[in-house]
């Protein structure tokens, strides 16, 4: 039962393993220990979480950084208070995939994407940014890639299976089934090519005003992050976590909230910093890149949208 002195917090999340610490902190009662009464609100896309945080439908959001999120933050509707998952070598999160036909005709590695038709959910999304990083890395022009925004995973799946696009960027969770079917070819992981800060924790002005509860929230999240990092991530080999007595309880929790069986959970464990640090430099370059593309409004930088009191820069 909720105690009278508990602060109520609504957290918006996706049912993805990249939010694992949130699930662990809730399930193991870390929030409660800190005097927080946390309620999770599940969304089916990253963008609405940012909007819901800005409109006050949730108090805190945990999800990927998108151009929409930065624009909301740029207008003062929310601020980033912590880091969450990152793309990192050895931790499969987002992958580059090719259609069978494109693979046959020479699309074999991520850098071959130049000049191809690439499906993604939306322009200005984290997938788009990943392609931008790739372009930077291999020195091809982003304009050479034909971006095909399809709004949803399903549309992307249909498009790449139907070979109407050459390639797609998809989260491993969505791509696994297609890979197993042999409908698409895996080219590589973003984490291996271009590591970056994928997601974070952010809050609206009303929540930020209550410094005590934000601190409590971040503290309990870090407790879970540390545990997740030391137990689950430490066991990851070849992109797959081990299932043993120590990891099993945590993996079960993640499986419960992501509606996945444990043997699938182990295959997509996103990297999460044990101290909840945020790669501020990378955030700043994300913003600059989005502003250059016209996806982000000009006139702000990372410093303007980060709540310095809370964020531990990397």
């Amino acid at each position, binding site marked *: 039962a909720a105690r009278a002195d508990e602060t109520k917090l609504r957290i918006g999340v996706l049912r993805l393993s990249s939010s694992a610490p949130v699930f662990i902190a809730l399930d193991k009662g870390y929030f409660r220990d800190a005097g927080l009464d946390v309620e999770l609100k*599940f*969304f*089916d896309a990253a963008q*609405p979480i940012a*909007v*819901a945080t*800005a*409109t*006050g*439908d949730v108090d805190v959001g945990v999800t990927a950084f998108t151009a929409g999120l930065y624009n909301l933050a740029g207008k003062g509707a929310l601020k980033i208070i912590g880091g969450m998952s990152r793309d990192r070598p050895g931790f499969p999160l987002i992958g580059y995939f090719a259609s069978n036909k494109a693979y046959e005709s020479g699309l074999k590695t991520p850098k071959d994407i130049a000049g191809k038709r690439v499906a993604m959910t939306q322009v200005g999304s984290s997938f788009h940014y990943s392609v931008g990083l790739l372009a930077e890395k291999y020195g091809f022009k982003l304009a050479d890639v034909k971006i095909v925004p399809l709004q*949803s*995973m*399903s*549309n992307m*799946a*249909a498009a790449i299976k139907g070979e109407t696009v050459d390639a797609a960027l998809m989260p491993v969770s969505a791509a696994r089934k297609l890979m197993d079917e042999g409908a698409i070819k895996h080219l590589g992981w973003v984490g291996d090519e271009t590591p970056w800060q994928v997601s974070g924790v952010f809050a609206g002005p009303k929540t930020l005003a209550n410094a005590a509860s934000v601190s409590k929230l971040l503290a309990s999240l870090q407790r879970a992050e540390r545990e997740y990092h030391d137990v689950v991530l430490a066991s990851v080999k070849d992109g797959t976590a081990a299932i043993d007595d120590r990891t099993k309880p945590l993996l079960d929790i993640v499986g419960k909230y992501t509606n996945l069986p444990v043997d699938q959970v182990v295959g997509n464990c996103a990297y999460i910093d044990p101290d909840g640090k945020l790669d501020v430099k990378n955030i700043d370059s994300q913003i600059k890149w989005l502003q250059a593309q016209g996806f982000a409004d000009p006139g702000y930088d990372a410093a303007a949208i980060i709540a310095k009191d809370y964020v531990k820069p990397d």
Partner: protein
Amino acid sequence: MLERTSKDPTETAGVQPARHVPFRGAGFTPAASRWAGWLALAAVLVVWQLVGGLALVNPLFLPTPAMIMRALYRLAASGALWQHVSASFVRIVAGWALGTASGIAVGFAIGLWRIARSIGITFVSALFPIPKIAVLPLLILWLGIGEQPKIATIALGVFFSTTISVYSGVDAVPRNLIRMAQSFDVPFPTIVRKVIWPGALPSILAGFRITASVALMLVVSAEMIGAETGIGTFVLQAGNLMQTDQLMAGILVLSLFGLAVGRLISLLEARLLHWR
């Protein structure tokens, strides 16, 4: 002066050869025959099932009617169907009622007063053509992601159509009936209630037919805003997961819902407009 003529036409008809007046009034009376429609529907379903059954087409691309019915049955058996339908139903009813009530009020104002007309028509014609789906982000910003923006989306779509059909209806009330009422010194409110309202009712009910389908279209768009249940959500989700049998089951439910509402409005018309 009256005298019965004795000429008997059949008698004289034999004198010269007579021919039939050629018949030239055929056609142009296309009454629908009920069973032909059902028969055609059945035929299409059978062919469709056969095409699918013989594996001529990948069932992902075109699930057979049997698969669709099975998906629908599973949905109904699990109780989820009822949940989805009722969630959407509440949204549709709330949004429709809100849009209709405000549309009727504004439509009557436009129909009755000069100033209201000048202002109202300008705004309605400027705002009506805006696709509601384009306004979704704004509605979310303004109203959050709860039920309000969903209901508002539906209400907005319904509002404009209703306004237009109501003021057209008021305009179409025969002026001679209004003059008649005035000639008996009937006061303004009574004229509105007893002459204009019933006179505009046919057009208002015809508008309901349109707004019902608008509401049905918009519930799908509205449920793109983070809804967890609702037939629109179900369809969108099935689409996302490429579960085409479930997708089509959802579409079938939407179609049946639309047909049911259409039938309801026909009944309402038969009851309220029996004087026509």
